[in-house]
């Protein structure tokens, strides 16, 4: 079992396991974080999982873990790895079952003091308009043709149907449409699962949250994002629902004999992979991208219904109840990108599993509004703690393929969390802190209690200290709908 002493400290925030540690490693493994983060990474199997990633063919530079790293399946959560386009692999286990799970933030011009008297009505309205829970139906029912359109075109479909504003697309990673997505690569069963669920939050750690901006670190950048002190914002955290789960499961199954056929050595069957430029690799990339488009659209539809709730409850109470989009980021995806690797400009497929893209100022993929400030990065904390808005940096681009953390990261198993307190108690504690909670499952609430997560401040201070993102603002929750 890999140990702390096997790692070398590179600087205050970077720790490296040399490739020589295990002859099967093709590159070193690196973890980003302060000493506390580094220590915590050895409490579960996340570093073994990271080492396994370093063994995959075509990996370049390092297998990397962000400070919110914890044990997952296949890749660790908080894992980043890039593989050469020409001789590398693509691995569904490097993306996970909830393809394009991500976060969207909407900003209002409403001071919390003006909204507080209506908070209960507002959260009740959002809960009615935005379905949550296992299975179930979403807010919008799609025909077969519409679902194929969603899979091919992502949020452009939502715009054409009146569920989006043009600015929303500008302020969504990849403009809410991944190039190369093909509805035809998604099989009938995945579509059967996804068709009824469009516009739904799902369950597990997904949530919809009303927050208040409680600290601004960079006024100018925050202003460009529509964020000001004491104003209300909304966060939506969810993904591609049953459609994404089915796509991942099917391709992991299809690829079970790919390592043998392609002569790829894998240390864990969840890491099955195919050459990027093979038939299976291309098919998975097309299907995964289509599922990502579904997820972007899902968050777009939810944003539409949150806007409707703001109108229903706040119109006439405040002068401006409209919500503008800050950004929408994905934290489970594999994307084709160009990066500098040593002296070479290289086309790679970057896997981010529980990690967020963090492109720097002047990157050509950024919309005009963010071109000079960098890509917004949304880092949700746990239910009872702060969330952060950051921006991407040149350091992230140079070191981590333009990637940073995605959240607080769990530190306690669900069972351990359940032993700490019952759901009723967690709800009462949150209420005492001024946080209203609506949930379909009190057990689920107890599993997601704030103490089950790392301190998001330490995670964000680590990425900020390492230069992988820069702080813009912090928000604190006032009402949460738990999926």
């Amino acid at each position, binding site marked *: 079992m890999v140990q702390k002493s096997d790692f070398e400290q590179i600087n205050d925030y970077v720790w490296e396991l040399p490739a020589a540690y295990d002859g099967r490693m093709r590159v070193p493994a690196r973890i980003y974080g302060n000493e506390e983060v580094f220590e915590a990474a050895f*409490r*579960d199997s*996340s570093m073994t999982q990271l080492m396994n990633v370093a063994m995959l063919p075509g990996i370049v530079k390092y297998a990397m873990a962000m400070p919110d790293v*914890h*044990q*997952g*399946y*296949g890749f660790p*959560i908080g894992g980043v790895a890039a593989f050469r386009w020409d001789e590398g692999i693509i691995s569904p*286990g490097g993306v*996970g*079952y*909830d393809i394009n799970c991500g976060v969207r933030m909407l900003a209002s011009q409403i001071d919390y003091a003006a909204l507080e008297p209506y908070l209960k009505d507002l959260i009740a309205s959002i809960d009615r308009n935005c379905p949550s*829970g*296992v*299975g179930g139906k979403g807010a919008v029912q799609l025909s077969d043709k519409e679902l194929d359109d969603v899979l091919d075109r992502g949020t452009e479909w939502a715009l054409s149907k009146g569920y989006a504003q043009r600015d929303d697309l500008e302020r969504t990673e990849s403009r809410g449409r991944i190039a190369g997505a093909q509805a035809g690569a998604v099989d009938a*069963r995945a579509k*059967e*699962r996804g068709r009824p669920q469009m516009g739904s939050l*799902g*369950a*597990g750690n997904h949530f919809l949250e009303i927050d208040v901006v409680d600290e601004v670190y960079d006024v100018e950048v925050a202003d460009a994002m529509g964020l000001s002190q004491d104003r209300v914002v909304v966060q939506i955290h969810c993904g591609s629902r*049953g459609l994404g*789960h*089915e796509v*991942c*499961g099917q391709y*992991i*199954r299809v690829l*079970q*004999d790919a390592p043998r056929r392609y002569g790829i050595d894998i240390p*864990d*069957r*969840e890491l*099955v992979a195919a050459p990027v430029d093979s038939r299976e690799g291309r098919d998975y990339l097309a299907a995964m991208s289509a599922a990502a488009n579904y997820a972007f659209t899902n968050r777009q539809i939810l944003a539409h219904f949150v806007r409707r709730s703001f109108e229903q409850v706040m119109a006439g109470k405040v002068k401006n109840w409209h919500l503008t989009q800050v950004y929408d980021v994905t934290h489970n995806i594999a994307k084709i990108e160009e990066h500098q690797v040593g002296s070479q400009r290289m086309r790679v497929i970057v896997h981010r599993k529980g990690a967020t893209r963090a492109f720097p100022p002047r990157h050509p993929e950024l919309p005009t509004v963010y071109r000079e400030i960098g890509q917004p990065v949304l880092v949700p904390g746990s239910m009872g703690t702060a969330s952060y808005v950051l921006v991407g940096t040149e350091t992230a681009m140079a070191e981590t393929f333009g990637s940073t953390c995605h959240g607080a990261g*769990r*530190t*306690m*198993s*669900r*069972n*351990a969390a359940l032993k700490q307190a019952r759901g009723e108690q967690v709800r009462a504690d949150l209420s005492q802190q001024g946080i209203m909670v609506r949930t*379909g*499952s009190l*057990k*689920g609430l107890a*599993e997601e209690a704030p103490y089950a997560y790392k301190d998001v401040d330490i995670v964000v201070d680590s990425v900020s200290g390492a230069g992988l993102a820069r702080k813009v603002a912090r928000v604190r929750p006032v009402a949460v709908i738990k999926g």
Partner: protein
Amino acid sequence: MGRWQEIEHTADLALHLWAADLPDLFATAAQGMLALFVEVDDKQLETRTLTLTALDVETLLIDWLNELLYFVEVQGIAFTMFEFTELTPTVLTATLRGGPVRAYSGYVKAATFHDLAVLATPAGYETEIVFDT
């Protein structure tokens, strides 16, 4: 009769399983997985037949569990009783019986292949399965 024990996992759920033979392993895995997150109404039993083929026993086991998750999510039915008419490491034919889900106490997205190996032991079979939640 097989048994399962939940094992610690930071973010997801995991089970250790012990079983006397393959039918016992498949039934125990299914019952253990469903016990993680659903309560079943067993007064309105429904029946289905299912046939699966796979390249090895691990793939067959994961296919089997994900098939049962599909029934839960899409049809709202949890199958907990099984009669295997054929079960080899690569082929499964079974009659499933179960009832509507009465309540959810959590969520399982998928059964994964993470570190999966079905081990033959003197007492039968043993394995560990990680579930994405």
